[in-house]
């Protein structure tokens, strides 16, 4: 299984008559391979959820393409057999007038109409035990009678009932308390062992670090840095990533408070457009942020780096890394 995003762009129409537009996601390209957790990190409003919802087919893509195993996303019953999501607010994900286990019933109606009640009950119980829940404690309860952690696990269990290839987890732990959070994260780490890909969306760097093989850092809808998690976290190249890593509690401070950026490492190397491959599996965008973001994006349509660029950049980046 491989989910591939290629220059995915989302432009929302906003304003009273839809006259204005807002580019929430701008030419984003990355892959989510099988059996891996990819964390998508960015502060709130950076377009993470929009990306997740486009992958889930809940929001149409403005430009670019999303493919699963080479086939374009066609939202509908078949697609959702393989791609599922869990959202941030567990209490909003359950219809409060129904018991929580109704989410399983919807899956049964749509995908397993032939299953007998006894068979189905056994499958649901097995899935609940897989996510470390006691079936008797959650079945037959209303959502408000369960905790946030229990509800998120019920939703993961629901997804596991299907022939799942990709799970989009959009800030699924942000409303949980610290100890529950770790349990749910461990659960995610466990289910990737089943060979499915997980897109783990978060604004919390430490959580992304915890379980992801690969990390994508998103800012204002564009990717500023991405690659293997140990590389992105161990040798952050982009000033924005560095700021995030050095000042986690100051995540929402304006950029001006941080180290001023005067020169663009990326531009100085003569690169034009896209991301530069600094080292194997480590890509970085232009560092001058606002100023040359536009230039960069106008350059080349593809977000994928070019070989030529790589050679030129490497030397400079190395120097910079050593100097630090």
């Amino acid at each position, binding site marked *: 299984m491989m989910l591939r995003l290629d220059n995915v762009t989302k432009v929302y129409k906003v304003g009273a008559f839809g006259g204005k537009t807002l580019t929430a996601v701008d030419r984003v390209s990355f892959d989510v391979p099988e059996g891996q957790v990819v964390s998508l990190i960015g502060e709130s409003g950076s377009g993470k959820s929009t990306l997740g*919802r486009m992958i*889930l*087919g*809940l929001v149409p893509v403005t430009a670019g393409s999303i493919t699963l195993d080479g086939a374009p996303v066609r*939202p*509908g*019953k078949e697609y*959702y057999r393989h791609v*599922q*999501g869990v*959202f*941030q*607010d567990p209490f*909003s*994900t*359950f*219809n*409060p*007038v*129904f*018991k929580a*286990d*109704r*989410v399983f*019933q*919807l*899956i049964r109606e*749509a*995908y397993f109409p032939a299953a007998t*009640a006894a068979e189905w009950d056994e499958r649901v119980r097995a899935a609940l035990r897989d996510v470390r829940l006691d079936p008797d404690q959650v079945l*037959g309860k*209303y959502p*408000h009678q369960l905790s946030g952690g229990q509800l998120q696990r019920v*939703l993961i269990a629901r997804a596991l009932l299907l022939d799942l290839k990709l799970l989009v987890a959009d800030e699924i732990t942000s409303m949980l308390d610290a100890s529950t959070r770790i349990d749910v994260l461990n659960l995610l780490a466990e289910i990737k062992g089943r060979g499915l890909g997980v897109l783990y969306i978060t604004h919390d760097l430490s959580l992304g670090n915890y379980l992801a093989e690969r990390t994508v850092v998103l800012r204002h809808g564009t990717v500023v840095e991405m690659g293997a998690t140990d590389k992105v976290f161990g040798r952050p190249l982009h000033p924005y990533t560095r700021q995030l890593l050095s000042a986690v509690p100051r995540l929402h401070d304006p950029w001006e408070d941080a180290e001023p950026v005067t020169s663009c490492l990326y531009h100085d190397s003569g690169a034009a457009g896209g991301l530069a491959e600094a080292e194997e599996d480590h890509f970085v965008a232009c560092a001058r942020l606002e100023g040359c973001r536009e230039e960069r994006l106008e350059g080349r349509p593809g977000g994928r780096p070019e070989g030529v660029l790589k050679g030129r950049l490497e030397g400079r980046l190395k120097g910079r890394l050593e100097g630090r």
Partner: protein
Amino acid sequence: MTALQEAAPRDPRDPRDAAAPVSGRREALHFALRNGKLLAGAGVVLVLLLLGLIGPLTIDAPPNEYVGPPMQGPSPEYWFGTTTFGQDVFAQFVYGLRTTFAAGLLGGVVASLIGMVVGFLAGFRGGLLDEILNMLTNIVLVIPTLAVLLIINAYLGIRSVAAQAIFIGLTSWPWAARAIRAQTFSLRGRDFVDLARLSGSNTWKIITREIAPNMSSYLLLTFILLFGNSILIASSLDFIGLGPTEGVSLGLMLQNASQWSAMQLGMWWWFIPPGAGITAIVGALYVANVGLDEVFNPKLRET
């Protein structure tokens, strides 16, 4: 009440409900039977409804027949007394109840159906459809109902109870559509709608199985208010002489009582029964609705 079936919070065909130890519907019933407001409100409505249904069967003469001595107060023979012309007020009352319920029910159902279809579609789909439906709603909202009714009466002379009720239904849905639209609009962004999509549900299934049940008490409130509203409008139209030309209704009784100066002549038995009947039906509907809200909303239930 067919319109309301869709609004029921649990789907009777839902196999899980049937399989569960205590089915959802039985659970709702369990709480309904312990809710004083619902029991009292529904009780009053039911008693009056039964009176309207069964009462006329026990009365031999047509309700407008001059059967007794004129201007008699209540007596064992004429429970609610007689009119200036010797008509039996009790006979008129039970027949009038029947007509009034019929007009309210038909008007309420028509208005609820239109209001739900328009409100759900506009609120859930949004965009151009929403704007078109909104425009339609506003147009119907500002139509001077009374003037139109006068014209219809003058040129078409449609004056049956059913025609009156349908007319009321066709003109009284806009506020319901607006309320349902607003409610739907706020629900459609909730994550459970997305989860239903991720479970393969289409728009129709999401509206009927997620949105409508979520606002079932709201839809019942709407229906019950439309029902009561239709009764009030029908009675006022009757009272000002724009009602059905034949038969008898609570509003027509009031009109006759007023026309023949029942109040000035101290014939309280002529105007109090129809007035109290209308008030009791509308008031009881409201009280029953508050009770229903508590029954259907598990959160209200626990407090």
